[in-house]
């Protein structure tokens, strides 16, 4: 998410390392570096100014703690200040006492309102709500058509309205009636995109607000927006009083400095981030985790949460026992691969890992999902006896397995060799760092994914 910024700050602190004490001079150069990093990450320059001021004040006023090195101390301060700016707690959606709760989705053109509306509807329905969507964008060609298609793809209902209806207000009112009649508890209103200077469209939004009395006005912001992000968010906030921000396109390499800035300027919390093109790629925003990520501490919490969803506890305990007693068979290995795949795309999992210390080379790892499929196919082609005891797999068995799985004997050989190595390694690993950190998620390092540098 904020990887590029993390790297830069880490470099700053690396340079700080070795300096015995926090002094006015070494702080000066560190602050300059932090400032540049934040600016290059598109954090608004006014916000940067204040952030730097706060960090300076705190760093100078603080007793040098014996337990911390100066760089650790600066990291701690920056971390605290970042959280302060990102919001100290995660913020929930609000709902009206009397359904349907109306959510207005607003934002600039091309920020991703319509896609986000679809994602939010899906998220709401997964979390015990019964949402309905309506597009009141009567201006952009095929905008309403787009929401209809999204509704079909997400399986969430949309109020279509008559194609010739050109009044946003009429569409919204009819949709609200329809929601109430069909027992829907949330109505998501996808509004027309606008450039914030457009008074007429802004007026239309104010009117929608007045008439529909929405509980949430969610401002959709593109993570790639530069210094202007704050300005448009601020303008929307002044005119409409937004209640929250959804940051989109965070799966790219945008540094997302806008995230920091919008919260700071409007005082309104970030509620969700969009992290992919699929409709389930919407996550609640966690300020503490985002701050961790900025500083390269990784997002272990999200990772563990995700792992927890996909992994069966009992199986995990059993696996642990087997690992320790070296009874880990090819069958167990296949089960493990399947569980890993349940976690979702491996690349996005890796993104959550901290890129420091022994794991810092992870960012260059490209995982070939097909490779995992191939390995599973090879194991699938074995007999239960072979899976139980790999020692019996001789030349002719290898040929059979290769034919059965559509691979080559070389690939089967390679898998068996790696498996034997991994078994040996795992005994040593079961007490290691990953073992402690993730417990149930033990992965034989380097095994399923081919070559991982530095591991």
């Amino acid at each position, binding site marked *: 998410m904020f990887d590029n910024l993390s790297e830069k700050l880490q470099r700053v602190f690396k340079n700080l390392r070795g300096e015995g004490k926090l002094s006015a001079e070494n702080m000066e150069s560190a602050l300059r570096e932090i400032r540049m990093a934040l600016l*290059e990450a598109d954090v608004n320059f006014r916000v940067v100014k204040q952030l730097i001021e706060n960090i300076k004040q705190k760093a100078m006023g603080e007793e040098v703690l014996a337990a911390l090195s100066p760089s650790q101390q600066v990291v701690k301060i920056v971390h605290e200040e970042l959280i302060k700016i990102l919001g100290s707690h995660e913020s929930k959606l609000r709902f009206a006492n009397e359904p349907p709760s109306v959510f207005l989705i607003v934002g*600039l053109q091309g920020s991703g309102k319509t896609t986000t509306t679809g994602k939010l509807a899906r998220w709401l329905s997964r979390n015990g709500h019964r949402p309905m969507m309506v597009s009141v964008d009567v201006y*952009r060609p095929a*905008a309403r*058509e*787009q929401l209809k298609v999204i509704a079909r793809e997400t399986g969430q209902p949309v109020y279509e309205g008559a194609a010739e209806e050109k009044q946003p207000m009429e569409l919204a009112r009819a949709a609200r009636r329809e929601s109430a009649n069909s027992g829907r508890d949330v109505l998501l209103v996808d509004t027309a995109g606008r450039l914030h200077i457009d008074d007429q469209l802004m007026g239309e939004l104010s009117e929608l607000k007045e008439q529909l009395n929405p509980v949430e006005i969610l401002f959709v912001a*593109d993570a*790639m927006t530069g210094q202007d992000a704050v300005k448009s968010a601020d303008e929307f906030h002044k005119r409409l009083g937004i209640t929250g921000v959804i940051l989109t396109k965070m799966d790219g390499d945008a540094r997302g400095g806008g995230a920091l800035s919008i919260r700071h300027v409007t005082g309104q919390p970030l509620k969700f981030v969009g992290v992919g093109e699929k409709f389930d790629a919407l996550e609640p925003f966690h300020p503490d985790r985002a701050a961790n990520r900025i500083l390269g501490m990784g997002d272990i919490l999200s990772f563990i949460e995700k792992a927890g969803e996909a992994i069966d506890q009992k199986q995990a305990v059993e696996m642990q026992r087997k690992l320790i007693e070296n009874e880990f068979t090819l069958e167990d290995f296949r089960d493990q691969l399947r569980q890993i795949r349940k976690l979702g795309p491996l690349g996005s999992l890796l993104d959550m890992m901290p890129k420091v210390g022994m794991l810092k080379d992870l960012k260059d790892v490209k995982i070939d999902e097909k490779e995992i499929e191939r390995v599973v196919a090879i194991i699938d082609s074995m007999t239960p006896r072979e899976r139980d005891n790999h020692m019996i797999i001789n030349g002719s068995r290898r040929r059979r397995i290769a034919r059965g799985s559509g691979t080559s004997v070389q690939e089967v050989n390679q898998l068996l060799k790696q498996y034997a190595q991994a078994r040996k390694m795992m005994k040593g690993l079961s007490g290691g760092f990953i073992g402690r950190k993730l417990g149930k998620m033990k992965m034989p390092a380097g095994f399923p994914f081919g070559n991982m540098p530095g591991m």
Partner: protein
Amino acid sequence: MIQTLFGTVEQEPSLLEKLKSGVQKTRAGLVSALEDALQGKKEINADLLDELESTLIASDMGVRTTEEILERIRQRVERHQLNDAAELKGLIREHLLEILQASERAPAHVAEPPAVILVVGVNGSGKTTTIGKLAARFKSEQRSVILCAADTFRAAAIEQLEIWGERTGSPVVRQSPGSDPSAVLFDAVSAARARKVDYVIVDTAGRLQTKENLMAELQKMARTAKKVIPEAPHEVLLVLDATTGQNGLEQARKFTETSGVTGIVLAKLDGTAKGGIVVAIARELDLPIRYVGVGEKVDDLLPFDAEKFIASLFEI
């Protein structure tokens, strides 16, 4: 006179006027802020330079370009070539113009139609709208146009392009949603060649530059175009949202690497107080800016001209 793929055409007289009103916001942001910073100041000191720095950074010009400008000012002050704050504006203007002109480049000349124009960019940058406006522009130059609906991914993208097709009277070559974009492209280019149409404008699905498989798809499309016409695509336009910050550079870099971008279209410039990313891109990637989108109307796409762009920033 402006350069097009088929030679030059007379420029409409109101171009400067239009550009001026289009970039009014930019002017309000950058130049007015500069003027505010310089107002009533005689001496060039650290405070003034600080203020200048904030102004330039706020325009999304990037830390490096900003540092470069400031360094130049500092040097001249040291050498006593510059001591009046009033001269700063001229100096900055000169520097920006230098950067923008250095990347100017005439488009490839097309001997025999059709000229294939691939339009690429991240999600929501304004590709489809830009294509509609481009089609209208070519039509007004008495050229024939075929639109190619190769965004088969986004919901209703094809319908959106068809509406532009109707508005501009250009036929749209399409297939069903989810089909192979290269196949649609092949159809469109073949049809254009058979019917001797001047331009094929290809709408592609928005993609973040980090998605390698999607970037590879663009490469495949370029290869497909070459199968029909060896010189195609004649132009690969990267559409950038003018509100984009420093990530714009990364976009330009990655799209250039994979799909050989030949020019930039800066869209939605009317909505923003910035536009500085143009300078950063010209400076670091040496890519020409071809067009600027300055409004929602069909004729609100203007050819970019560095001198006029700067002039419209600095002259009221």
